[in-house]
């Protein structure tokens, strides 16, 4: 019955570009109003100040409509804007740095098909000295060191889904504490902090079975029966589209992380 229904439906094979676009979660951070995707304006409150995401719709005046692929690729994977400025690490270019040429190209092609919207981007509201954007050149020199992901799972988790951006704590320079990888951070989303995703039995997800992970990534339902909310709800709308073999790779990645005992930040 289900097969018949599937056959009768309009078949919908997601393009590789849309797949990368969805997993990368571009829409979540660069959209305030669902009707005007990619026009930016979403705020990200951090100890350094408030960041506002820019318009990345293909509008030639206020978006990225005049960019070339080379400029896009450099911005996404090197963190350098077409005018030479270096982005703040609030834009996860250090995660996207690992994206393959093929995926970057597919993503670019898909993004050019999105509708353009005229929307002037808002300037970040940061405290001194973080408002000195030239400092980002120094930051980038110190902390930007992309490496090739060894497995499909690490490529998906660390690069495309960029889970570490919220689930790994940062030092006072805003760089990852590498010995606390995926052990949760103190960022606040609706009053709650991103939890420890390592398989630590007490403070992490050591009790989660493979089936728990699959159910969670495809529906947002936790083993307790409750669902996740806030930003993680948007992330679920990305992980839900993971192809079965990729979902398995993501689950295997998390289940094989070294367990780290780290209490939730208050």
């Amino acid at each position, binding site marked *: *019955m*289900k097969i*018949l*229904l*599937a*056959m*009768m*439906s*309009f*078949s*919908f094979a*997601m393009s590789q570009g849309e797949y990368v676009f*969805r997993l990368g979660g571009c*829409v979540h951070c660069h*959209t305030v109003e*669902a*009707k005007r*995707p990619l026009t930016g304006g979403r705020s990200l409150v951090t100890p350094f100040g408030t960041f506002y995401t820019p318009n990345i719709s293909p509008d030639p005046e206020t978006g990225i409509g005049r960019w070339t692929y080379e400029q896009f690729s450099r911005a996404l994977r090197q963190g350098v804007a077409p005018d030479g400025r270096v982005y703040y690490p609030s834009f996860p270019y250090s995660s996207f740095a690992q994206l393959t040429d093929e995926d970057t190209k597919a993503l670019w092609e898909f993004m050019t098909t999105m509708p353009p919207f005229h929307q002037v981007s808002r300037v970040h509201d940061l405290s001194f000295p973080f408002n000195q954007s030239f400092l980002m050149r120094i930051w980038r020199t110190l902390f930007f060191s992309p490496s090739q992901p060894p497995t499909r799972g690490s490529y998906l988790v660390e690069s495309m889904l960029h889970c570490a951006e919220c689930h790994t704590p940062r030092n006072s320079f805003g760089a990852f504490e590498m010995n606390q990888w995926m052990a949760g951070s103190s960022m606040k989303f609706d009053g709650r902090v991103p939890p420890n995703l390592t398989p630590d039995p007490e403070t992490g997800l050591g009790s989660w079975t493979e089936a728990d992970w699959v*159910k969670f990534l*495809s*529906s*947002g*339902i936790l083993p307790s*029966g*409750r*669902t*996740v*909310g*806030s930003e993680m*709800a*948007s992330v*679920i*709308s*990305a992980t*839900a*589209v993971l192809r079965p073999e990729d979902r398995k790779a993501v689950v295997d990645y998390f289940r094989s992380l070294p367990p780290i005992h780290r209490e939730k930040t208050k």
Partner: protein
Amino acid sequence: MKWWVLLFLLVGCSAEGPHKPVNGRQKSEVGFEKVRGVFAKHCSGCHPSRSPPDWLVYDQARTYADNGLLVKRVVQEKSMPPPSSAEAAQMTEEERQIIASWVAAGAPEKVVARGEVDQAGANALTQQCLQCHGKGSAKSDLPIPSLAGQTKEYLARQLRRYKWRDRIDPTDQMNKVAMSLTDDDIGKVASYYAGLAKDQPAPSAPSDMAKWQAGYQLARWTCSGCHTSGPGNGPASVWVPDLRFQSQFYLLNQLLRFRSQERKSELMRHFVEGQSPEDLEALAYYFANWKGQNP
């Protein structure tokens, strides 16, 4: 009110309500064929020639089984056949017990085997669902969902949530029904509806194309990841409901309830908060008038 007082009241209410637990028929090894043999041997000499009933006719025998007289006279008082008669002397205690167990099993016409009991029980269970939900297409003018073709995982989860009042039906109807169901019953009902074919209306252009387009634009980056990115535009997971061709009124009703947090879901709340009633209406319209992922 203490929670257990509330629970007690609720349990009390549910048993009195229209949705009493349905046990189905009980297992029985004695059908009418077997008791008919006993009747023919010991009763037909006098009945129905001297007085009714004709014990060899099922409906007539059934009347006396149901009104209690059969067991009273034959098994308890042993006043039938008349104690001084030859028939009474010939009738063994075992034969009287055959009649007793037949009546105890509900005086069935045929022997009910174990498998048939399950089927009969499941039928009785789903009968009450069908009254409102029907078998196929959704009624768009009522906030009642069409259940055909949803997964058993999703249906069972919702029934359990109704049962534990984690999901509340404002009419209380679903909570009452679910409370009367055992976990086993829930599994049966869920499997039944999961096995029914989802009704697929012939694709036609929605009458309000502007509204449909608005819904499509909204759903594209909010709903579609979970609800329509699976195989054949179905949900991404067995735990996620299929919204295609669902009752428009039901969809809108649930979206509003997610927004007001009357229906609890942190996840759904995140997607509906901040959306205007018009937006939610467009979303409901889009899914109710489904015609493919891409217009």
